[in-house]
């Protein structure tokens, strides 16, 4: 695991973090969906590259799942939902973009510090991968916290799952069970949350979380 191999894997995992940052400052839903597709695409490339490097053919399946479901099916489906709901032009931000980016940088630094210290004995590629994966997870969570639209919550959640898949494939010898379960959990989450969006829309005419809170009769 040296030289160019390491560099490429590093680059792919790093670009996944980069795309996570891009997600953070997209305040239009359709653009956000595009970036999410890109996110899944980078993940698929990274996993495929891991499959090639580790000589583990089962990882190609994972890459394929990521490519088909996360990069194509889910963004297309979500786009249809968004168009149907007529919110594809909606602009939303809770935090200021600058603040969110600063916070994200802090999170990446934190995950680097933690992971590089904890895994000092492990293989360097796995170390870097884990650190990046944790950053992606944290950035996904950050997005879920800062957005108020339900669709962005779904996307934040799924980019969080992408981070988990990255972690699972980065380490050598993870059985396929893990990836399949992760992929399916995303799919199920998507279905469930998609249904919820429609139901919410039917009842309240909006997918704005603040509106839901108002319906529960609470102030913030």
């Amino acid at each position, binding site marked *: 695991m040296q030289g160019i191999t390491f560099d490429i894997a590093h680059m792919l995992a790093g670009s996944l973090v980069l795309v996570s940052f891009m997600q953070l400052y997209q305040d239009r839903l359709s653009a956000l969906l595009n970036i999410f597709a890109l996110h899944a695409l980078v993940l698929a490339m990274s996993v495929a590259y891991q499959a090639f490097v580790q000589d583990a053919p089962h990882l190609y399946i994972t890459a394929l799942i990521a490519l088909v479901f996360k990069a194509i099916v889910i963004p297309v489906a979500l786009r249809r939902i968004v168009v149907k709901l007529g919110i594809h032009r909606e602009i939303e931000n809770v935090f200021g973009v600058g603040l969110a980016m600063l916070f994200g940088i802090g999170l990446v630094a934190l995950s680097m510090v933690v992971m590089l*210290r904890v895994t000092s004995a492990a293989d360097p590629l796995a170390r870097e991968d884990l650190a990046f994966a944790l950053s992606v997870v944290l950035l996904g*969570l950050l997005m879920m*916290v800062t957005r108020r639209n339900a669709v962005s919550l779904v996307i934040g959640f799924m980019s969080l799952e992408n981070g988990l898949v990255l972690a699972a494939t980065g380490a050598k010898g993870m059985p396929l069970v893990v990836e399949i379960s992760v992929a399916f959990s995303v799919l199920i989450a998507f279905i469930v949350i998609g249904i919820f969006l429609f139901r919410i829309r039917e009842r309240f005419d909006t997918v704005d979380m603040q509106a839901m809170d108002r319906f529960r009769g609470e102030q913030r």
Partner: protein
Amino acid sequence: MVTYALFGVLALVVLAPIAVALSASPNATGFVYGACLIVALILFLLALHILLEYPAASTVTLPLGLPWLGAHFRIDPLSAFFLTVINLGAAAASLFALGYGRHEEAPQRVLPFFPAYLAAMNLVVLADDAFSFLVSWEFMSLTSWALVIANHRVDENRRAAYIYLLMASFGTLALLFAFGLMAGADGHYAFDAIRAAHPAVGTAALVLILALVGAGSKAGLVPLHAWLPLAHPAAPSHVSALMSGVMTKVAVYGFIRIAFDLLGPPQWWWSLVVLALGGATAVMGVLYALMQRDLKRVLAYSTIENIGLIFASLGLALAFKAYGMELAAALALTAALLHVFNHSLFKSLLFFGAGSVLTATGTRDMEALGGLIHRMPQTAFVFLIGCTAISALPPLNGFVSEWLTFQAILLSPQLPSWGLKLMVPAVGALLALSAALAAACFVRAFGMTFLGRPRSPAASTAQETDTNSLAAMYALAAACLIAGILPGIFIDALAPVVQALTGGQMPVQTGVEWMSIVPIAESRSSYNGLLVFAFMAVTGMVTAFAIHRLASDKIRRGPAWGCGYPDASPLTQYSASSFAQPIRRVFGSLVFRAREIGEMPPPGSSAPARLTVQLRDLIWDTLYAPIGIAVGVIAERLNYLQFLTIRSYLTLVFAALVILLLVLAIWP
């Protein structure tokens, strides 16, 4: 060997869903308890065979449980001994339930859980890694909880089950930490690995405390006993017998396994804690028992007393083992294990008797019973044997184990530590006190229930119980007698267990003349149950013969002297409360803050005078009530967390994660 035992357990586990499927059928009770009886008997014989013939441990690892660990199972002499105790009790309870279970109101609430509960207890003893041990332990707690709440329409039972569930989870939590500490940071959860690694002194002490809390809360050590007298009587009687007679023993097993086997060589001061708790438990248990009116609750509190006795013996064994006095340690441990066996016999017997009385009269309140010896003579006879045994009267088995305990206590002057030299006789005095009070307690239990005149219509029309129940009780009574007159056989059977745990063993007893038992040396002390029994039988028969033949063989019936009162209502008899009054006056004012309030009507009024007794459970008031209040207050404060917005919840999760990561990053 262990595989056969596991097959038996599997059979019991399979019985549970069958019981669910059968629950509509009227034959379900007979089938399930019959099958349990057969499986338990087979397991009992197997365990006995292993105990007597195979001192070497046999192990098996199944690919269950944690993926990198598997489920380890093992039978060594200690687990074989406890398997015999469990399955003997289980077989007796199944036989009893063949008759008793027919009176059950909702058998489908009991039948599926009963075999599962038996399986769980067997599994705890067989487990050979921390994970399987804890899972089986928790399985045992949950199945017994389900049995406690079987009769869920009674408010009292629901409360008992709730408290039981809380205490059981608390105990398991303590055991979880104990095993976590023993496994260390690398997490070697198999008992082999734990046994090989001796923890540091401080860690070991912490583990011992946690094991005492965890196993002690299940066994009923004061002050962790609060659930026991509530939960044991709430269950159906055959289950009460199992919980009191057998499950508390599984808890004792857990403590022995940790303190004597897994934890490595003991420190002398460990025994101080165990001895003090044991002595306090014995006295408190029997004092509580004396204050109760509910027959099954009396038995439950008396279980606490016996557990105290067992733990005191275990503490002694730890002390002797710490100073390398193998023979004395072997004596103390033998006394403890023998008492485990004996108590499982007579406590099951007594609970069966109480169950028969309950089905015959519909009440457990001793103030509403009485005179049952005429209506239920056979139950009365076996109950009397149980009472004699638990009061530690020769020639029955309770005497043997308590006598051995006191023999071990008499060896304490040889201990080098002054702390123990002073402590052990004090604990001995407590045990002697509790033994005397236990005798009073069972005179009261037997006298109020079976003697005198019936205090209620239900008691005066009671019917003798069925043959299956009687067979179970007679079998246990016979076992009590055999273990009492031939204790040498039992002591020798325990030798491999004791040898493995203390490194020594008591002198071989089977060769001693006249079947005496000699714990240390002939010159010091010996006891011969057979001779005592023969003497009592012969003198009793001679006296009876002399009275009936030489004096008068006429039976005379005359009016009983009514103490000068014209109204001979049964309620004017000596009652359970009045029997307990002297003891309440001596101990109760201190221990229970007992207060007697006499209400005299003014002169000329025809209202009755009243005497009200107020008892307070100080342990509950000072330990449990404040915890309950604190939990309530905290829950009240945190209640608003239930009504946050989705984003606030996400933010909370996120913040918690980031803070934990920060701690990890900053931690040196």
